[in-house]
């Protein structure tokens, strides 16, 4: 026994000698990211400039489609935190979108005619709508903390049913089946309404102005989620997904984490709901049904479970597909213009992303983001994630 410990101590001494600061420094030096000198860096800058310039060139249809995709991306990032990173299935995401959208509408709207509203400043209403969604998630979190995986998915189905029932019946708040008009955002006197503003000779309507709000929100949400995932909470969440028992034994309070991630995920959905309401300028129950929850699940599966980039890619894919098909329905074979019989663009896109889910699960586990990630790891070896 003594020779083992001797050996070990020798080993340890050797290792201590082997870890001079020199080598450690050399190691970190190779791992320092140099964003602008590697090819990916220019790509990011070019992409950012392109996104900023788009409102000057695209018409309202595409801007609306893009804004829709941004809202979907925010919601998908939230769902991916819950489902992709923590392994907790949720079918109730559309419910939290609805809480955000209707919450904003009711908080910012005025009490006139048959509607009730608080008439708060719109920025405050947006903020409170997100908080409200967090509270709704918090109310459900005792259940979300106790149930795991698919069981939570079934429990959250109830939320959709409850949500639609409330929307249909609380007509003074929601407008019922007809929907309710959404007050335009107004940030410190700058209105994001239909009034046109000339910027460099281009008339800026609500879509153009909202575009930048959407970009800023998406960027903020993505960076926050990435920080969470790369830090201590992210490691705990992944541990719960990968090995629940081991996570508990390592000191992670599993139920509390599940509940907390559920609340965070609902707040992301709430913000997405607010943005959706602002883009559509009208909220109706059909925007928040069961199918919408499934679409969000399709987004994160297609894009890539557990990563922020995957959620964004998947959200853009799933939300842009029907728009693209609608716009080019006359030029595409097998897709009919809406109302003429045959396969409508909406149906065609449902088939397409259904097929995409199957294809991704079979051939690209890890999602579309893997394709991007693989290319960058090939061009810059050694960069992680």
């Amino acid at each position: 026994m003594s020779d083992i410990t001797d050996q070990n101590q020798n080993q340890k001494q050797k290792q201590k000698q082997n870890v001079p600061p020199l080598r450690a420094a050399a190691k970190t030096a190779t791992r320092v990211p140099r964003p602008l000198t590697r090819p990916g860096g220019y790509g990011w800058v070019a992409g950012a400039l392109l996104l900023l310039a788009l409102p000057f060139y695209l018409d309202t249809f595409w801007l609306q489609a893009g804004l829709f995709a941004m809202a979907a991306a925010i919601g998908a990032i939230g769902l991916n935190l819950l489902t992709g990173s923590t392994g907790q299935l949720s079918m109730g995401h559309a419910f939290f979108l609805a809480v955000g959208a209707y919450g904003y509408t009711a908080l910012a709207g005025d009490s006139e005619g048959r509607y009730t509203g608080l008439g708060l400043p719109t920025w405050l209403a947006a903020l409170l709508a997100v908080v409200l969604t967090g509270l709704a998630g918090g109310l459900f979190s005792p259940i979300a903390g106790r149930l795991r995986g698919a069981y939570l998915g079934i429990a959250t189905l109830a939320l959709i049913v409850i949500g639609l029932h409330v929307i249909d019946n609380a007509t003074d708040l929601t407008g019922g089946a007809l929907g309710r008009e959404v007050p335009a955002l107004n940030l410190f006197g700058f209105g994001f309404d239909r009034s046109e503003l000339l910027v460099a000779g281009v008339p800026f309507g609500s879509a153009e102005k909202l575009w930048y709000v959407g970009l800023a929100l998406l960027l903020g949400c993505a960076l926050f989620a990435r920080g969470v995932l790369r830090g201590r909470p992210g490691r705990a969440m992944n541990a719960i997904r990968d090995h629940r028992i081991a996570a508990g034994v390592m000191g992670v309070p599993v139920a509390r984490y599940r509940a907390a991630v559920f609340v965070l995920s609902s707040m992301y959905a709430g913000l997405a709901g607010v943005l959706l309401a602002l883009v559509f300028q009208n909220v109706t129950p059909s925007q928040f049904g069961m199918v919408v929850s499934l679409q969000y699940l399709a987004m994160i599966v297609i894009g890539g479970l557990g990563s922020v980039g995957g959620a964004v890619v998947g959200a853009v894919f799933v939300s842009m597909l029907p728009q693209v098909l609608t716009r080019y329905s006359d030029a595409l074979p097998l897709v009919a213009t809406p109302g003429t019989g045959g396969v409508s663009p909406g149906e065609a896109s449902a088939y397409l992303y259904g097929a995409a889910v199957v294809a991704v699960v079979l051939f690209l586990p890890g999602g579309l983001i893997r394709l991007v990630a693989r290319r960058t790891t090939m061009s810059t070896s050694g960069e992680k994630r």
Partner: protein
Amino acid sequence: MTTAVPLQVRDVTVRFAGLTALDQVNFTVDPGTVHAVIGPNGAGKSTCFNVLSGVYRATSGSVRFGAHELTGMPPHRIAGLGIARTFQNLALPPRATVADSLLLGRHRLTRTGFVAAGLRLPSAAREEARHRARVREIAAFVGLEDQLDRPAGSLPYGQQKLAELGRALCMEPELLLLDEPVAGMTADERRRTAAVIAGVRDSLGISIVLVEHDMGVVMRLADAVTVLDFGRRIAGGAPADVQNDPAVIRAYLGEDEPAHAEQDGEQDGEQDGEQHAQRDGEAAS
């Protein structure tokens, strides 16, 4: 490490719907020693670990760590007392890097929450840097410093087991529960792992409870041994005494009885053993 306290297991019984996995088990782990729990397959060793770490709740009996009663505590609170464990089957996420896996072990010692991590507050960055440095030291201690940035799944099996040991050490435990730490390793890996475990006890002063089938490793490392068979403690004491205990030899090699009786007994034993093993496997996975 600072206040060395004993682990006392008193009359612990675990029943699963009529099957008694542990029956009135008693033993004490003295501070700073390696205590081996051995026994044939299905003897209840892993069940015992699951009770100690809070994964299973004992039907009756008590487990005390110093002044704390562990039975009925959820696993994360037991971990919070400084009790770490490794698993018989690997519980290491294959795609996460070794560094990330080890950092998970720092969970109880770190405070960064969702907001601090999401906003990348300076406090979160400082904490992360400090603990990454400590993780690097511990990785060097178990001999994995060069593997820190590799996905855990890409390492050979023996190194994955070492990474799991390293992750448990990252919790800065006072008591370490090791469930078959050298199972499935090559002779060379076994020697290295045994040296690491001895080093943990001698240089860090951590008490260790060890479940192991490799008698060579047990005899070299253990200061005390508890032998279980069919959920009962059949022997205990210093390794050399246990090795020659007739009850232990009987448990491992069977009764010295007429041939037909022996066969019957063994068959029964095997079936029971399989049941236990299945249960243990479920618990570990």
